[in-house]
């Protein structure tokens, strides 16, 4: 899970997707107007997605019932673990056996209090926020600068640099993890925020995504600003960055999610309890035989921000997947 982002964006950078995208006609281009996840229509006069399906291709009454049943089953299977997580976290000490334990009565929030008091959960939450937010800001700044240069500037070694970025996408993260850890051990970065964060800022996929996006921006605007005497930094800040808003939001959402859910790297780097992130902390609770309701309370605490972000920025999540993997 930790690398949803990685591979969503990797999909775009990897040689694989080139094959995938290239082989299907008409894949690229019009995703903005015909998204998988069309914006709520009506206001702009665009027809609702539903009305554009020809009647002949809509399922008949029997088809609709079958579809309804299958969808219901799939939804229950999908949602059940979330429901169980929530309800069981509210049943401290209760025998966790079916079916009684899953009914939503006799609830008590005491597991939340216990896990927040007795464990380092608030500290882990803080660590996770720091890890995620700083990384998002860092990756966005670095990759938009580099993406702009790769897309719009000519300089010696540009292609070599760019392809060396891309070449690393094939190398599994676990291969680079060990030498990076050794380096951090020597530099004294283990168990520190900077040791945790800095290595993750080098995000080749983000640079690639930025470059692809910026390349499609019209040059004339930059030229005009330049003629008006704008400095390069000024052009970047007041012209390029505003144009990048959609891609910054999409990429930012994904980098945030990736870091929030990341496990192995924080596990390796956070040696003391104080430096754990939520995922690492919850895994450690699990191993210490902490009662289930408390572990699940911790899980809910870790899940709520992600869920809120998902509700708020669903469009960005899904654009991050389809835009990067399919558009190519």
């Amino acid at each position, binding site marked *: *899970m930790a690398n949803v982002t990685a591979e969503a964006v990797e999909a775009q950078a990897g040689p*694989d997707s080139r*094959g995938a995208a290239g082989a299907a006609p008409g894949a690229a281009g019009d995703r903005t107007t015909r998204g*998988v996840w069309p914006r709520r229509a009506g206001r702009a006069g665009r027809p609702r997605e539903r009305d554009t399906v020809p009647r002949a291709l809509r399922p008949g009454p029997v088809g609709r019932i079958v579809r309804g049943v299958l969808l219901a089953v799939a939804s229950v299977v999908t949602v059940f673990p979330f429901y169980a997580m929530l309800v069981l976290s509210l049943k401290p000490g209760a025998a966790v056996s079916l079916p009684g334990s899953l009914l939503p009565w006799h609830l008590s929030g005491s597991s939340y209090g216990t896990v927040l008091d007795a464990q380092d959960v608030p500290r882990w939450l803080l660590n996770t926020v720091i890890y995620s937010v700083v990384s998002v800001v860092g990756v966005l700044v670095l990759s938009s600068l580099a993406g702009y*240069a790769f897309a719009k500037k000519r*300089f010696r070694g540009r292609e070599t640099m760019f392809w060396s970025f891309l070449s690393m996408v094939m190398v599994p993260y676990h*291969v680079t993890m060990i030498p990076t850890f050794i380096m951090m051990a020597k530099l004294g970065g283990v168990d520190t925020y900077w040791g945790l964060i800095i290595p993750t800022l080098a995000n080749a996929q983000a640079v690639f995504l930025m470059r692809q996006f910026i390349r499609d921006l019209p040059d004339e605007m930059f030229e005009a600003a330049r003629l008006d005497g704008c400095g390069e930094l000024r052009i970047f800040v007041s012209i390029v960055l505003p144009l990048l808003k959609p891609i910054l939001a999409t990429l930012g959402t994904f980098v945030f999610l990736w870091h929030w859910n990341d496990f192995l790297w924080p596990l390796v780097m956070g040696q003391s309890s104080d430096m754990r992130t939520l995922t690492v902390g919850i895994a450690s609770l*699990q191993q210490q035989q902490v009662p289930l309701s408390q572990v699940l309370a911790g899980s809910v605490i870790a899940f709520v921000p992600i869920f809120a972000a998902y509700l708020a920025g669903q469009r960005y999540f899904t654009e991050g997947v389809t835009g990067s993997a399919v558009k190519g």
Partner: protein
Amino acid sequence: MAAVAERTTRPQKNRRGPHARREARIGLLFVLPCFLLFLAFRFGPGVAGLVLGFTDYTIGDTTHFTGLENFQRMVHDPLFWSSLRVTVVYSVIAVPFTVLASLALALLTRRAFRGSRLFRSVFFLPVVTSLILASTVFIWIFSTKGPWSDLMGLLGLPDQSWLTDSALVLPAIALVGIWSRCGYGMLILLARLQDVPRELEEAALMDGAGPWQRFRHIVAPQLRPAFFFLAVIETTNSFQIFDAIYVMTGGGPANASYSLVYQLYDAGFKYSDLGYASALGCVLFVMTVVVALVQRLVLGKEK
């Protein structure tokens, strides 16, 4: 994507003017922070990781170049073969079912209807959920008195903890993998389904083709590249299975769920045997490359 290769040069520019030099300077300046980080934390470690596989590196000790010794040791290491087997078996179970489940979800939510977007959102939710969090629930789901056991009881199977049975532990973890990944595949396939020309399907409908025939002859061929893409992504992803195992079983029972990355983690960070861990990383790298190459070959042949 073909556009990647094409250079984004602006032809009418004077190459050597002061303007060009300034542009080059700015370009380098903008790329540099990212590039230096990349050299230090990706490219360097990537190369080092492959090289370390040929040494006996441990922190704080002198390092020797040992050639193929790690790999010879690997050949005689039953734990390596076991972890390789676990990784492959896991992939063989998880990948096909993930792709099939993705296809089912994509087809179910393909046509827009009342609530279709809500269903898509629901099915995608596990993808944004950390496997660590999900695993804490799935431990209970798979426990002796958990709902999974009850479900199996309805089918006449004994209620037992799937996570403590060495024959059932990988299917159980694969179920978690499928649950968490099929929303991603759904989205990829949905995107491609939008591009299936509607006229073709309508024409087939006029000719009296049923749903299965329409799927078989019109939709499936269009989806093929997306299938390959998914298969590769999911395979390389499942080669790296670690998070769920770490929380749910710790590699047990009796190493029945001890994966390659788990061994890499243990070798490197529990036994400080970083040379051997790097050699295991090389194996993972080769596996990843082979899968990508196979996919290239298959797709190349099609064109």
